[in-house]
């Protein structure tokens, strides 16, 4: 690994050095190209599509942390289970001859099934495992949910192997259930975007709107926001805070499950056991950048991370020939945030919890 980096770095530097005095000119050309409406439009749309995925995988994490003060390390594993469960529904429901609308309907069913099953599992985990240790220091909850992650990942690996699939590679059959129009590019006004990216944007926007309406327009949402500030006072007003905790934990894990189904159709992610860790890391980045426990912060942070990532990806693909770097940029955003504003964009010094 280190040897390949050692070899790759001089080669890349050599290519830059070879460019020599032409570099400023190349940069100017690249900048003009980047700022052209078609390129910028594509980069922005791709960034918003990425942001939609980040919101989906991080929403549950931030809701749970905001209300209960519990950092759920099992969140990525629940997304992974959602991907497999949704994939199972899609593979079972979609045949070669199934049309585009039929495939979308199957996707809807898969989302409902994954949401319901993961919400039930999340509710069970909250009542059975997390609730008894609310009064302990946060380290206990981190260790517990980390343990749950190990158990769920290993269970998934065993089950997937049992059915003759390779746990570490993407479940290709699920990718095959996608309607063809989602794989096509759609162009308008010189801007070309894939159908899948538009689908992800629609799904992400629907999730943000749904969670926002839940938080601001429902009585339970009012309890969630109040409980995020002071759960003891909320219980003294006659509200069964434990039940609110269970509902929010279930909602959070349900959204994680739905996110998994969406990712199962994306060849860049796909249903696989490593999806658990692959989603947990960016989810944490987004939640920390936005400010732990604030949904608004999560949405804004997802947009920032998504747009920075898509911009950097373009630059590293078209100007600096080193495609490994864009992924690091996401973590660079995290580092800069922690240095400049450690509590995150919309973070407060304290969040709810027991």
């Amino acid at each position, binding site marked *: 690994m280190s040897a390949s980096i050692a070899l790759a770095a001089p080669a890349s530097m050599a290519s830059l050095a070879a460019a020599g005095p032409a570099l400023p000119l190349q940069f100017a050309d690249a900048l003009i190209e980047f700022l052209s409406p078609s390129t910028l439009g594509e980069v922005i749309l791709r960034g918003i599509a990425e942001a939609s995925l980040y919101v989906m995988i991080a929403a549950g994490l931030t809701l749970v942390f905001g209300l209960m003060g519990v950092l759920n390390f099992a969140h990525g594993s629940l997304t992974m289970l959602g991907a497999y469960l949704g994939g199972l529904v899609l593979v079972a429901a979609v045949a070669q001859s199934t049309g585009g609308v039929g495939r979308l309907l199957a996707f809807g069913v898969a989302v409902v099934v994954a949401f319901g099953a993961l919400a039930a599992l999340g509710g069970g985990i909250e009542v059975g495992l997390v609730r008894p240790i609310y009064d302990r220091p946060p380290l206990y909850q981190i260790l517990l949910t980390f343990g749950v992650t190990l158990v769920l990942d290993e269970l998934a690996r065993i089950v997937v192997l049992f059915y003759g699939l390779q746990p570490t590679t993407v479940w290709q059959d699920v990718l095959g259930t996608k309607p063809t129009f989602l794989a096509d590019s759609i162009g308008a006004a010189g801007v070309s975007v894939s159908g899948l990216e538009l689908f992800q944007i629609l799904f992400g926007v629907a999730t943000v709107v749904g969670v926002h309406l839940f938080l601001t327009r429902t009585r339970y949402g009012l309890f969630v*926001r109040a409980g995020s*500030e002071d759960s003891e006072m909320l219980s*003294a*007003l006659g509200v069964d805070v434990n039940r609110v905790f269970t509902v929010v934990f279930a909602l959070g894990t349900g959204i994680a499950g739905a996110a998994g189904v969406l990712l199962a159709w994306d060849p860049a992610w796909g249903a696989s056991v490593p999806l658990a860790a692959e989603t947990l890391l960016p989810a944490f980045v987004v939640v920390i950048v936005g400010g732990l426990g604030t949904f608004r912060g999560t949405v804004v942070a997802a947009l920032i991370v998504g747009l920075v990532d898509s911009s950097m990806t373009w630059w590293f693909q078209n100007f600096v020939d080193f495609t490994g770097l864009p992924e690091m940029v996401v973590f660079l955003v995290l580092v800069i945030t922690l240095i400049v504003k450690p509590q995150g964009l919309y973070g407060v010094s304290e969040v709810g919890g027991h």
Partner: protein
Amino acid sequence: MSADASPDPNADASADPNAGGDDRVADESSAEERGDPLLSLSGVETYYGDSHVLEGVDLDVYEGEVVALMGRNGVGKTTTLRSVLQLTPPREGSIRYRGEELVGRETHEVASRGLGWIPEDRRMFGQLTVEENVRVAVPDADDADAALELAFETFPDLRDRRGAKAGDLSGGQQQMLAIARGLVGDNDLLLVDEPSEGLAPLIVEAVAEALTEAASDTTMLLVEQNLPLALDVADRFYVLDHGTVVDEGDTDAVSADGERLRRYLSA
């Protein structure tokens, strides 16, 4: 206990044969007339970790009266209220509300039986609006509009700021909101903790007025160090010292300057 009793503030009332003698006999006879207490604490012992805060508190609150709970800082007044609400559950003793044991119940179960808490530091939901703070305290969402009207009628200042975040209100307005939240909760007993603390004299007057009005149809257990306010609003009083009740009686029996109580209240 008479006004010229032992000046030692740490003296145990039970050790003084004259302590509270006549008053307690009078209280017992009036208690018979009043029937069973609404709230009754008996031998309540509460700890914070290893710290023994309440060392056997006995007190009764009867329907319709305002009872002041007084004493210096750190003697266990707030802990008594927290024990009633099971926020800090007692390890020993009994707390009965309408004859029903509260010890061992969840806080929300206690609260939903009609016990409202107006806490010492107001405990607003600062990111929620004034209106949302009231709404969250209403047990039945269908009653929310009527509850809001009651809150705004009692405290007209809040009506103008109904859309403002509670965290942006002044200290006095926050106290009004805290009291409003207690009033709209369909409560039969309000546990009010230091409502005048940190407020300007003019605001204290408004708070006292609101509490007096609230007391006309709600029973109240009031923790208050502001002696004139406590004597003005309350019908009876208990004095706590070192986690036990050391004096009790009718507020009418206390002179206007509160000399009998002052030695337990000054630091």
